[in-house]
């Protein structure tokens, strides 16, 4: 199984057809073959969360799945979520709260935060911390990130009310 294999899936709504080596992980495929460099590679063993993307609605570590496993899937990266406006309010909250410094964790952090907010309308600070505890940030100390997510949750809840 070292020959390239054909795969077809959608990335940010666009169909992608490619020949990929079976050993190529999805993070490297997105970055190196599609140029979607917003998906960051921090540890390459599924711990840091920088490569978090959405596959068929669930957040996954793209360094831990192979490109061939994405066959038939619907993949969303930070570029797609940004362009669709899906996380615009969350990004605004991150900006206003300075919830990012170097920004390397931020795409994955936004993915994880949006996933939480999709599941829970009013998460507590502890619940936010728990849900983001698979995403490593070396710069902020997390406090500002928790603030930004909490602010976004409250604003969304108010909009719904």
């Amino acid at each position: 199984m070292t020959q390239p294999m054909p795969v077809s899936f959608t990335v940010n709504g666009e169909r992608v057809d490619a020949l990929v080596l079976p050993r190529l992980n999805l993070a490297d495929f997105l970055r190196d073959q599609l140029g979607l460099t917003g998906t960051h590679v921090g540890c390459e063993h599924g711990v840091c969360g920088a490569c978090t993307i959405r596959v068929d609605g669930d957040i996954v570590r793209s360094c831990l799945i192979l490109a061939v496993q994405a066959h038939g899937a619907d993949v969303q990266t930070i570029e797609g979520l940004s362009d669709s406006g899906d996380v615009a309010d969350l990004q605004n909250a991150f900006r206003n709260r300075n919830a990012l410094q170097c920004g390397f964790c931020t795409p994955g952090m936004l993915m994880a935060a949006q996933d939480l907010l999709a599941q829970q309308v009013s998460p507590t600070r502890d619940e936010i911390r728990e849900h983001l505890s698979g995403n490593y940030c070396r710069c902020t100390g997390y406090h500002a990130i928790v603030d930004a997510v909490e602010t976004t949750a409250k604003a969304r809840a108010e909009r719904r009310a």
Partner: protein
Amino acid sequence: MSDGGNIKGLSVLDRPNSYIGKTVPRPNLDRLMQGRGQYVTDIVLPRMAHVVFLRSPHARAKILAIDSATAKAMPGVIAVVTGRELAEVITPWVGVLTHLKGLKSAPQHAIAIDRVCWQGEAMAAIVASSRALAEDAAEQVIVDYEELTPVVDMRTALDPGTPVIHESLGDNLAFERNLDAGAVDDAFEKSDEVIEAEFVFGRHTGVTLEPRAILADWNAGESRLTVYQGTQAPHMMQNIIAKHLDLQESQIRVLCKDVGGSFGIKVHVYADDMATCALSKLLRRPIKFVADRVESFTTDIHARDHICKGKIGVNKDGTIKAFAIDDLTGIGPYSMYPRTSAIEANQVVNLVGGPYTTANYRARARVVFQNKNVTCQYRAVGHPIACSVTEGLVDLAAQRIGMDPVEIRRLNLIRDDAYPCASASGMKFEALSHHAALDKLLAMMNYDRLRAEQAALRERGIYRGIGLASFIEVTNPAAAFYGVGGARISSQDGVTIRLDATGSVICQTSITEQGQGSESLTAQIVGSVLGVSMDKVRVILGDTDNTPYGGGTWASRGAGIGGEAALQAAKVLRDNILKVAAAILQSTPGDLDIVDGKVVDAVGGAERIELNELARIVYFRPDTLPPGFQSELMATRHFVPRDYPFAFTNGIQASWLEVDVNTGFITLLDHWVVEDCGTIINPQLVDEQIRGGVVQGLGAALYEHCIYDERGQLTNANMADYLVPMAGEMPDIQVGHCVSPTMETELGAKGAGEAGTAGAAACVANAVNDALSPFAVTITEIPLTPKLVLTALKRF
């Protein structure tokens, strides 16, 4: 006020619509949040190849032979290069500084030649069309070794029976410093109580989320090397690459775009990076190196790894009579280039006892070689050690004489009206605020209520502790840090500002951005002084071709030094603009001001001419200006501190935590910081620097540890086994400020980047010991793992 018509009494900092002291969002965050930043790992160039390094599996060995024949025939392989082959295009270096008397180290090559000195040292470079193919080929390189006994334990590194790592140096002692101030023996003799303790600090590392990465592009047609690198000091890199590749500085351009975390990790000269530059020259094409996580753990500089014996003399009334320390640190096999690996121990000597009045202080620091990865300057260099030793000793003294930790600090901290003064070690303090900071902290944390809560919970078998740690922080370093020792590291920074034809402002600064907010603080200062809105100011950083020459961002110097240069450059440009305006309006510069991008009457504020109209005239219709008048809408200023070698800041931190005496787990409940960085340019950015710094200190206090075995093997070189602080374990952190501006600059700003890290571990350790006080247990080692806690409680 004489500067160009300012309203009397207003400094440049509090002009109308000033951004100084205001929380405004950093410019250009959208790029990062949308995944559209440009980190080195993202950059791809035509004909780019990837390098992977074959690394030593042994801590100390002779390389007898390297057979790369099979590897060279592998798919995609462009070259396999050994250290000896690469030495044809790059010279070795020695990491010493002359002001650290006696510091010695051995020549280090970009790739090891004949011998390896730590597990992870590169022995060969494999260049291929992809990183995966290079890794495949690396597995096929066969190396014959003669394994040698490694020097692992720093405690025995100087023993006669221990092998000497570099024979030419004679022994394993890299550096020793002794200091004796006041009358130490007499002071201890006359102390009512003398308490001694040994403090142990685990090795840890920076774990930047983006690993080290470099892309070197030698263009043989231009004879120019363009280096894309995540670095804190582009001009330093330019100088050093030129020196060792036998090039002129003008042949090298270092470009630093987005950087995924630095913290001191990315301010050093790594052999891998130098090798990548040399390989590009050798192979005449762009070569990219991106460390993987294992390589990051085994080759990014480590830090700390100190064993420090401490001693304090105290009288029953609480007067601290003397401090003494004997510090030992293991730095790996080489002193790192060019900043050296002796600075941390040197800082420990400088900083112990620093917040306190006692003039009696003795210190010895010894820096030894060992066969582990190199250590060097990481965020808050030496501060966490000095602070933990000092504050640990102060708490032990308080405990011995039965005094509250707050009271002993009140008695002994340097008074807020005692400045300027100097510490026992000779550090010069311009203006600090230890007592104001302590008072503010106690109010923020509601100290008395917390003590009552602690007592009540203890009745129920819940063990909570309160820990305090006062600290001082070295910021805004002048040439005293590196330049005087012969390092070609600029302590000066420069800023160039110009007004363009449409009224927008271009600002080039030599400080760099790794997320601290260098771009924001520069735009805030320039916007405020010029009188234009921040969004009109475009800041360019991280490009040796396009910024003034300067030091970059490290040692908490960006705001204080780069910010002052920005302020001074903006003042000159403002004066120049007003001269043009006066010429156009037939007025005098002193009668005019700039507000909101418009030239106005200084008195009354009537609008006279918009800057874009002024610029239009300057660039497109200079013929309409008075004869002989030449506009200068570009100004450059540089700044370096001259009065003080460092602008010391101060602060205090407190921790409130719970120790589970059955599991040894420590739960952080609350954390408070009050710090004084002088003028605050952007409160939010300062607070976030503090919080991020605190959490790095908490990581060191509780989790982070590079664990080596007796053969010099790093046993936890991955993120599953090396624990870093994650959101779930970290507390919210409350930050307060005192403000004692430095008078050396008009801006008055001191650094804030390292204060959080300086004191966090110390106050956590003090809190743990406070929590465990009913058990008569004192722990003076970090990280404070559950095992360590249970062992101390004799429950393991």
